[in-house]
């Protein structure tokens, strides 16, 4: 391959045959889809979009991008790409820490895993090779013990362990991979796919070997400029000054609640009132924060490690009380006890479950209980902390009603005979922004290629006036223009997810910084316009995959609650989400026909010949 920057080495692992082959990346694919998310989806398309997610034929990709593990700031991200058992769409879920950098330093752009092992296995990755090893000794163990086991076996130095826990082994549909104890590739059930293949862990051992840029002269200034934007952005990313650095992502809890944009009690209301403060980033900092960990090459250090000081989980030290899980297991479940929130997140990190998703079957059960829909099947009260902890265990172990809830919110709502209780899009639970109070999130959730997601198009950045990519501050309650805004965000994020840089870089960096770093590392020309074009191609590639997988006209929707039940809380009172209007605007901007990419568009973008 003529492109620089890449290791140009992908391990193709066949667990059925027990073989590993090493191949380069097709150059045309690298140019068109970059790496990580984009390249992973291209491999998924090649594998066939009709595949059953839990069959041995599904592909599970651990992908780096060309900036992963370099000196580029926030470049410690890995994308896990597969067909999701939760949504049936293609999905990619990223984690931070050091595993992605170590995979690159060990000599790989990615690992593509197919087949099913005859017994539990793990992959041991080092010095440009991948070994398939017996994992019987750790099968059944939680993630924390699994990490400990491998640290004892291989030594802690230069080691990353990405593992599934009992939830993945038990095929919980929203099971996830967790890296280094608590950095989760949370969404989409990628850990469930790992469990179906009997793949327990990916263990990577490699000392630092920084990749060299193809254009060294251009690299230094590009990297320096990008870093300067992060350091100088004093409101959000600037170390120990910006809100994200000081309080972590949970700095959002109070503002979304105050503006009527915090989905509360299964989205029955849009604010948690004064209780939001008790689970907020401000509260965490004042009461239980003990450390601010970070990821490879990141000065922001947004992770928040806490120690519980009282109550049944006193002494538990864990990371990280993020906004999303604090909302899901807090406000969404009517729970204002921060200690229980931390306990539940830690359980998710140990069982290997998506902490955003877990709140959904719980809150469906809670609303079903309140409305008398449980038909004598017990009940779960809002904010019943001990019962939530027990239910989380039952879900991970598929015990009792936990066996139903392990299939997600939709299965849980159907079980109670009320599918309308599931706050999901394409099977995946909505994140922590109510689209009645932040309208852009409505169109973002509906059109996300991996089911409801806030990270495909982070419109709150514009709706809260942070304004990346030259976008203007926009009224959170206005719908006009949001379709077009979402398209731009989706395209830029698709590009940065393919580099693979942390999404939070976007609060300071723009397409200029992305283009300059990519161009210098790989040795090509790249303009901000190219960033948008390549991002658009990746977004259309995913949509094309989903169209072929059966997501046709009318697949972009929201739960009726958001479009039909007006908000009753200050800030957004009386508002619903005007999805149809935004969809029309969005499809016009995309050139799609009711959610389907026409052939002409696929040709224009070079996705098909």
């Amino acid at each position: 391959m003529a492109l620089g920057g890449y290791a140009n080495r992908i391990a193709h692992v066949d667990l059925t045959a027990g073989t590993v082959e090493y191949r380069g990346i097709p150059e045309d694919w690298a140019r068109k889809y970059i790496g990580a998310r984009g390249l992973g989806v291209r491999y998924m398309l090649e594998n066939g979009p009709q595949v059953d997610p839990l069959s041995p034929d599904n592909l599970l990709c651990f992908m780096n991008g060309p900036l992963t593990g370099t000196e580029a700031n926030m470049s410690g991200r890995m994308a896990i790409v597969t067909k999701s058992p939760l949504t049936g769409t293609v999905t990619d879920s990223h984690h931070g820490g050091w595993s992605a950098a170590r995979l690159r330093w060990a000599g790989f752009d990615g690992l593509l895993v197919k087949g099913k092992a005859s017994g539990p296995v793990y992959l041991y990755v080092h010095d440009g090779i991948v070994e398939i090893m017996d994992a019987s000794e750790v099968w059944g163990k939680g993630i924390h013990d699994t990490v400990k086991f491998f640290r004892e076996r291989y030594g802690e130095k230069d080691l990353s362990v990405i593992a599934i826990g009992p939830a993945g082994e038990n095929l919980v549909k929203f099971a996830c991979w967790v890296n280094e104890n608590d950095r989760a590739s949370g969404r989409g059930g990628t850990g469930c796919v790992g469990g179906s293949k009997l793949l327990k862990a990916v263990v990577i051992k490699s000392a630092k070997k920084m990749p060299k840029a193809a254009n060294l002269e251009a690299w230094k200034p590009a990297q320096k400029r990008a870093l300067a934007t992060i350091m100088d952005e004093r409101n959000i990313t600037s170390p120990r000054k910006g809100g994200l650095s000081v309080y972590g992502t949970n700095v959002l809890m109070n503002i979304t609640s105050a503006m009527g944009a915090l989905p509360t009690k299964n989205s029955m209301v849009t604010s948690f009132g004064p209780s939001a403060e008790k689970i907020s980033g401000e509260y965490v900092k004042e009461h239980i924060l003990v450390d601010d960990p970070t990821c490879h090459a990141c000065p922001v250090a947004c992770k928040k490690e806490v120690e519980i000081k009282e109550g049944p989980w006193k002494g538990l030290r864990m990371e990280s009380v993020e906004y999303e899980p604090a909302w899901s297991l807090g406000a969404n479940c009517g729970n204002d006890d921060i200690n229980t929130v931390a306990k539940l997140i830690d359980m998710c990190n140990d069982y290997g479950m998506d902490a955003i998703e877990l709140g959904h079957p719980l809150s469906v059960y809670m609303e079903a209980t309140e409305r008398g829909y449980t038909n004598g099947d017990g009940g779960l009260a809002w904010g019943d902390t001990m019962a939530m902890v027990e239910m989380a265990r039952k879900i991970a172990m598929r015990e009792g009603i936990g066996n139903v809830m392990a299939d997600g919110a939709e299965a849980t709502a159907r079980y109670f005979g009320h599918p309308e209780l599931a706050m999901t899009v394409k099977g995946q639970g909505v994140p922590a922004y109510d689209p009645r109070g932040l309208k852009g999130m409505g169109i973002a959730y509906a059109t996300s290629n991996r089911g409801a997601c806030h990270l495909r198009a982070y419109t709150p950045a514009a709706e809260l006036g942070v304004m990346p990519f030259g976008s203007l501050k926009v009224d959170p309650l206005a719908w006009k223009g949001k379709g077009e805004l979402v398209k731009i965000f989706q395209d830029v994020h698709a590009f940065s997810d393919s580099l693979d840089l942390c999404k939070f870089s976007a609060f300071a960096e723009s397409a200029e910084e992305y283009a300059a770093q990519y161009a210098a590392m790989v040795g090509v020309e790249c303009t901000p316009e190219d960033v948008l074009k390549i991002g658009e191609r990746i977004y259309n590639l995913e949509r094309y995959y989903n169209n072929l997988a059966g997501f046709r006209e009318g697949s972009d929707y929201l739960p009726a609650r958001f479009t039909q039940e007006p908000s009753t809380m200050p800030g957004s009172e009386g508002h619903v989400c005007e999805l149809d209007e935004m969809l029309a605007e969005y499809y016009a901007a995309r050139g799609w026909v009711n959610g389907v990419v026409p052939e002409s568009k696929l040709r224009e973008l070079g996705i098909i010949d």
Partner: protein
Amino acid sequence: MQVNFYATLRPIVGGRTVEFHVGEHVTVKQLVDVIVERFPRLRKELLNEDGNLYPHVHVFINGRDAPYLPNGVETVIKPGDTVDIFPAVAGG
């Protein structure tokens, strides 16, 4: 009048809620002037060189960002209104 502060503004005002003594019929703009007079360090956090609120700063009156209210920062704050002030916040 009680005003709630959040995130990086809290260490500057020394707490969550601060009482300000203002007359009746005070507008959002006048309230902000009173606030920065009492806490001069807030001036550069809230106001640009022209003395206008930064677009990333939020002064909520009952959950609605003041610039989006019909009278914008000239809106008169009524007794019992909830006033929340946020710096730029973002996460995900």
